């Protein structure tokens, strides 16, 4: 792939990014011209099904969320290795298969471990 095409592709990406930001910003700015604006305290209270909220809303949540996040990080990053491998599999042949088999077995063992440790249960 020649450099021009390579760069052009990223110009597209940037244009899309800018447009993606411009639309909400533009929309909201335009909306300001047409929408009413008269806040009063009751309106600005967080909605909790009509009951006045008590305590801080930014509560601590179950540790299960953290664990899922950790699991995600591990597995998501592992895919970093699988993608280049997948692309290059033609060149790698059986060597590549073996290497990746080892990798996946280890990954699967990790999964089995968290399974057994009830990390994947949600309660």
């Amino acid at each position: 792939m020649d450099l021009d095409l390579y760069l052009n592709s990223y110009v597209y990406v940037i244009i899309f990014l800018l447009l993606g930001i411009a639309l909400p910003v533009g929309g909201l700015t335009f909306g300001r011209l047409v929408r009413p604006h008269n806040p009063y305290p009751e309106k600005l209270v967080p909605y909790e099904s009509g009951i006045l909220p008590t305590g801080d809303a930014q509560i601590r949540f179950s540790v299960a969320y953290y664990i899922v996040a950790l699991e995600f990080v591990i597995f998501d990053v592992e895919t970093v290795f699988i993608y280049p491998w997948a692309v290059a599999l033609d060149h790698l042949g059986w060597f590549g298969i073996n290497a990746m088999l080892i990798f996946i077995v280890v990954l699967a063992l990790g999964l089995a471990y968290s399974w057994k440790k009830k990390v994947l249960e949600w309660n």
Partner: protein
Amino acid sequence: MTAFNADWSLMTPEIVLAILALTVFTIDFTTGIRGKKPFIGILSVLSLLITIILVVIFNQTPGSIGATFVVDPYAMLFKIVILIGVALVIINSMSYMEKHHEMYQGELYSLLLFAALGAMLMVSSADLITLFIGLEILSISSYCLAGFRKSQAKSSEAALKYVVLGGTASAFILYGMSFMYGLTGTTNLGEIGAGIQQLYGQYPYLVIMSLLFMIAGFGFKISIVPFHMWAPDVYEGAPTPITGFLATVSKVAGFAIMIRILAVGFGGIYHEWYFVIAVIAALTMIVGNTVALVQKNVKRLMAYSGIAQAGYLLVPLAASLSFNITMSMIVYYAFAYIFMTLGAFAIITHVTENAESEDISSFAGLQKRSPFLAHSMTVFLLSMTGLPITAGFVGKVYIFLGVMSSEMVWLAVVLIVTSTISFFYYFGIIRQMYMMDPKEDSSMLKAPTSISLIVTISLIGTFGLAFFANMLTNYMNGLMWIIL
């Protein structure tokens, strides 16, 4: 690609250890996480023994896999040291686990096995990437191990400090490496070493900066001054057998690879950096030995002692000796260090657990409570002090002899004077054991089989290395230490 047609049999020990480690890990989690499982420990020790045998068999003839993974005597000897160390740590953990049911036993063992694997990879690597992977396998396992007593705030705190500082250290190492890569276009140590002199001519500041970053990073890992501040805290907080692990295996492996980088990668510009190492070694010895004097907690004391020992190990590197002599010294001392330190840690584990206190006074009157442990501890402490007739003595004299024949006599003086200072704190423990009365409520202390086993092995190692040092030194004389 060279990896396809490489001689993978060179890697047999690593591969087998990996398989065994995974097997241990699988057996562990499939048989239920909690509960006492001494057989997992035995299995782990067996795995390590098998690996040691394989190392001896398969690493005899040097070779390399794609110039990233090398098998040479240097790697082989360090692998043996590491594997022995981990095996001793596991045996030690087995008795520790008896008392701490809240810890997941099998996980500890498998983490230790993975750490051993990482360390093995690391000492065999001749490529920055492989090296980094090995280092991180070891480090990340160590972080987990340090925080293994989850319910203990101290343990968690230790682990967190370790993670943060260890991560920072990794970043330093990597930052240094990234410049080496950028300037040479390769991550292979041999190729870097081949071009380093020319490179230094072109970009002196960048090369030195890169080197300093790496020294700082590895300095963290092996806790040399001024990068040692984490060690006492982490050592204190970590479970005691793990403290032993951190003080020995982790440190020795870090050393091995730091030396390989310095010797192979930066050997060409030796005269530019040896003085830095000398100063660091001197500082390490001075700070380690003097701060140890005021420690009341045994594990902190051992941390500072370990810092000082790291200083001794750095000395041969700083003294401009022939490569073979330097290597022999370091390997000999590494062997001595692993035995004496792990033997001491086995006893420390048992005594502090029994006393439920890590204060030095928990050793009071140990001679009356358990003569065997007290005498053995004395031997290990004497060895660490460098008194006869122990491996530590021979090792220290050996290093001293070497450094005396270099230009840096002042370093020798620092070595010897700080060793003398170390008499105070090592003999402080001896004083507790022999000259203090046991606490009133204490009874006879019976050493469990596992502790006795480690102590016996360590005693054999400590004495054997002294009396039969010739076997090791003869083997090491004239070795082709590093192939590339």
